[in-house]
């Protein structure tokens, strides 16, 4: 199979997910090729690092490709894939990948599956695994025809075979100017506390909004910071700079106390590397228990007051 990975350039170089895509490509190529596609070009050291993970590296260069725009990128990628006939096109499950995936799938007339965490080559197409119901269940889906477009969850396909690919440069220009224009990229706001530097985080989710004041007190007693999952930030109970997850901050405290947080992937990706994760949730099926070291199946409103008074007592000793 010819498996292509679309490399994602970011300001710091290359999004690490691109290497994971190539690892996956090497795993499923089955005697075929793993091929990286870099839109807009990149520095030689970066291209060399990509070539160590791919059988071929294609560099697509042309006008209007220096800055990411979903329409121009999809335009040249479609031209390229119509020429090179892939079996599988891999993209990261990132904000870029999630925009490019539908553009490529429709224009190449092929099936698309997002946020994939497992891929098996089957007799008829592929079988891909992904989480559904915000991580509570998994589904194995058969993609019946190839080519297909897959976006791949970050942090899953970390190890892969090493190879030494050749570089190929191609000049391809977008066939028309993009209709969507980027005005500016806005950096995150900085608040009084940087939660990514805190040793203790008391994190509040949808299931603990009524206990937010107690959570703040507990964080205070522990000398830590209070943070929240997306629904809590959305409801305005905590500022945006306290959000943990893909669209918020990544944290690695000594203690992460997850109160009433279900554990959707978008949150988990921002806290899974914490040293000690304790989760309290009344739903025994909550996916947070798959990443927590210790769990309490119960109501935060009942447990938090006891915990706060016990911590206060302990601190007084």
């Amino acid at each position, binding site marked *: 199979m010819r498996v292509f990975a679309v490399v994602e350039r970011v300001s710091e170089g290359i999004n690490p997910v691109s290497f994971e895509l190539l690892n996956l490509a090497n795993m499923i190529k089955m005697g075929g090729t793993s091929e990286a596609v870099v839109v807009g070009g990149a520095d030689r050291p970066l291209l060399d690092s990509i070539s160590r993970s791919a059988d071929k590296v294609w560099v697509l260069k042309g006008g209007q490709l220096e800055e990411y725009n979903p*329409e121009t990128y999809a335009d040249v990628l479609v031209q390229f894939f119509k020429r090179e006939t892939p079996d599988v096109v891999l993209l990261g499950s990132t904000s870029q990948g999630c925009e490019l995936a539908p553009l490529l*799938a429709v224009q190449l007339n092929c099936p698309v599956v*997002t946020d994939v965490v497992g891929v098996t080559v089957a007799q008829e197409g592929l079988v891909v695994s992904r989480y559904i119901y915000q991580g509570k269940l998994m589904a194995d889906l058969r993609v*019946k025809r190839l080519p297909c477009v897959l976006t791949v969850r970050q942090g899953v396909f970390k190890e892969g075979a090493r190879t030494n690919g050749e570089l190929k440069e191609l000049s391809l220009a977008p066939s028309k100017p993009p209709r969507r224009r980027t005005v500016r*990229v806005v950096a995150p706001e900085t608040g009084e506390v940087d939660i990514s530097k805190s040793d203790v985080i008391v994190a509040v989710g949808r299931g603990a909004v009524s206990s937010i004041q107690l959570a703040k007190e507990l964080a205070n007693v522990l000398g830590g910071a209070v943070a929240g999952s997306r629904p809590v930030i959305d409801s305005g109970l905590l500022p945006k700079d306290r959000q943990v997850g893909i669209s918020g*901050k990544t944290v690695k405290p000594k203690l992460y106390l997850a109160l009433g947080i279900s554990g959707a992937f978008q949150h988990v990706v921002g806290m899974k590397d914490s040293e000690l994760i304790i989760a309290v949730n009344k*739903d025994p099926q909550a996916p947070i228990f798959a990443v927590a070291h*210790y769990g309490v199946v119960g109501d935060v409103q009942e447990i938090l007051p006891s915990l706060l008074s016990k911590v206060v007592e302990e601190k007084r000793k």
Partner: protein
Amino acid sequence: MRIFVLVKHAPLLESTLRVSADGRGVDPVCLTYDINEWDRYAVEEAVRLKEKYGGEVIAVSVGVNCDATLRKCLAMGVDGAIKVPVEVGFDACQVAEAIVDVLRGEMFDMVLSGFMSQDANNALVGGLVATMLGIPFATAVTRLSVEKGEVLAVRELEGGYSEEVLLPLPCLVSVQSGINEPRYVSIMGIKAARSKELRERVVALREPAVVVERIYFPPTRKAEILGGAPSEVASKLVKLMKVKGVI
């Protein structure tokens, strides 16, 4: 402005989930349905745009049992609703094609969708519909305004970053949660909804290219579960915190 808003009648995640006997679905007996959370924000945004600029909002939903969700949209201030009474599975292209069949014959300035559905979590249908219709789109939008025939949308990126993009009309915007505070459905709204039109549009579906082989619970549950009364649990947690050196 004429706005179409895409909504899904989706199972609530608070439901206790059970895999169906054939292993390819979720036992419907254990599920409670409502409007998909992200779509609630999309409906609110559409109604606010109508209130500001005039025009009408029409909700579109694919599914045999989506009447309650469409009625809710009508009660929230949507002017009309179109039900596409077909059952679709996990092939997002199939869902998008059904929607596009409805939209192709219509005039519109904007299509709004929720960023993703709470059951399939694909985050795809909006982008697919836009691409099939040949209109520009922006995903995960947290702020939206319309000026001089252009949409200024703030898109959420990773790590707290965001970007502002400009899109000409007509376009599609997929809405991230938190963009607004969706209104409650009032008694007045429910009464008004009764007189509004809920149409059906039958479309022909092609064979899905993505089908379910198996649905199952994720294989690992790592956490050691601590039991007991709240004070007992609290003591155990304090012990763990002391071992870790945070107390």
